[in-house]
């Protein structure tokens, strides 16, 4: 038996919002793979739950008219990975969420829950950062959309108000078209592991595939929240695909991070990972984009 005080199951987004308005302390539960474990551990023991499990409105992945890809917040990791649109247009996201937990967990854990729990280690987060994902939050006041890099406030803290529900994650066409990326999760084990460090890097190359037109770099667990590396992205713009560039890219990444020591790994080790994974993810992204270093 789980130790929670009350359980309120809703069938629609509006019902969920209504319930959140009435219950100040209630916690939203979707797939449950995070919330139930926290209840078991005692961290959330005695809480009140509002269950949005399998609400049809929060399901589905759609290509909107303007080319935006819309992902329902309650899509499971498994559903994201195996979706045709994701495979075709944003394979980096499918690969990233295919590294969360283990196979059974990926069939219940949701991408929206992964973001909303506010963990810096979320496997979907760094990839959504480099895809410039837009998060759609709904409340009684209406709907508003914010970029994911404004969503995280601190460990376990997000900008989502208690009475708001994340309904959708949107990735605009301009942010994924001709953009190739790669996510690397470093963990001590391949499965059932929380990232020691996560790194997502994506590139858009010049038509002759010799220069970088745009680079985006993001990390999980390199700071209290997932982060984007703005300065290095500005610096890398227009650079030629040379070995020196890759080396400097790794070095410069170190200037933008602030990892800490934890029982999982020391700060020093994480810094080493920051540099190394930046280079590896960059090289792989360039390869996906059809380019080559020192060609």
């Amino acid at each position, binding site marked *: *038996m*789980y*130790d*929670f005080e*009350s*359980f309120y*199951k809703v069938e629609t987004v509006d019902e969920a919002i209504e319930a959140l308005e009435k219950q100040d302390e209630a916690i939203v539960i979707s797939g*449950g*793979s995070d919330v*139930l*474990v926290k209840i*078991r*551990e005692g961290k959330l023991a005695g809480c009140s739950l509002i*269950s949005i*499990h*399998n609400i049809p409105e929060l399901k589905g992945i759609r290509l909107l008219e303007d080319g935006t890809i819309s992902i329902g917040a309650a899509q499971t990791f*498994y559903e994201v990975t195996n979706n045709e649109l994701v495979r075709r247009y944003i394979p980096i996201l499918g690969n990233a969420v295919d590294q969360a*937990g*283990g*196979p*059974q*967990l990926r*069939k*219940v854990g949701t991408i929206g829950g992964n973001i909303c729990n506010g963990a810096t280690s979320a496997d979907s987060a760094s990839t959504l950062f480099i895809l410039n994902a837009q998060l759609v939050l709904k409340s009684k006041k209406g709907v508003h959309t914010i970029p994911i890099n404004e969503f995280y406030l601190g460990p376990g803290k997000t900008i989502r108000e208690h009475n708001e529900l994340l309904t959708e994650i949107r990735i605009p066409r301009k942010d994924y078209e001709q953009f190739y990326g790669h996510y690397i999760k470093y963990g001590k084990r*391949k*499965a*059932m592991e929380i990232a020691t460090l996560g790194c997502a890097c994506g590139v858009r190359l010049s038509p002759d595939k010799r220069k970088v037109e745009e680079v985006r770099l993001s990390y999980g667990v390199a700071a209290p929240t997932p982060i984007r590396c703005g300065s290095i992205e500005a610096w890398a713009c227009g650079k030629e695909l040379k070995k020196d560039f890759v080396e400097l890219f790794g070095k410069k990444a170190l200037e933008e991070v602030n990892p800490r020591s934890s029982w999982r790994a020391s700060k020093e080790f994480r810094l080493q990972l920051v540099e190394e994974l930046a280079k590896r993810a960059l090289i792989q992204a360039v390869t996906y984009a059809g380019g080559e270093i020192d060609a």
Partner: protein
Amino acid sequence: MLKVINIKVNGIDREVAVQEQESLLETLRNRLGLTSVKKGCEVGECGACTVLLNGKAIDSCIYLSLWADGQSVVTVEGLKSENGELNYIQKAFIKEAAVQCGFCTPGLILTAVEIIGDDRIYSREELRKLISGHLCRCTGYENILNAIEKAKGSKING
């Protein structure tokens, strides 16, 4: 407070009264007597409690019974044929000595059912990833992979 849910368990429609706080694992074991579903870590790490929910392997320890209302669940008890004979995947596990203490076995067999049920062909590496949600402390996994490959092969080759 008890609530009534309707679940199809191993092909049979069941009406069960459950607590809100109850996990699917507890309902299957304690109310329906399906003790092949093992209680291991209870936090979704070991895979001993794996069942098929609408054909997909999930950890029943981190799934609330109320969510299973209207859905279909399969446990290892549902694999045997009418005359009580073991399913070919179970037989492959025996033949390949993929079972030692047996605690992880029901869960692994259900994951194997899902893997073998789809029409894709997997490399050994892919299979390793597909069974990575299960902990086995006896076999070292090699015989389990052999059994799954064997059963997959026999299905493809008829």
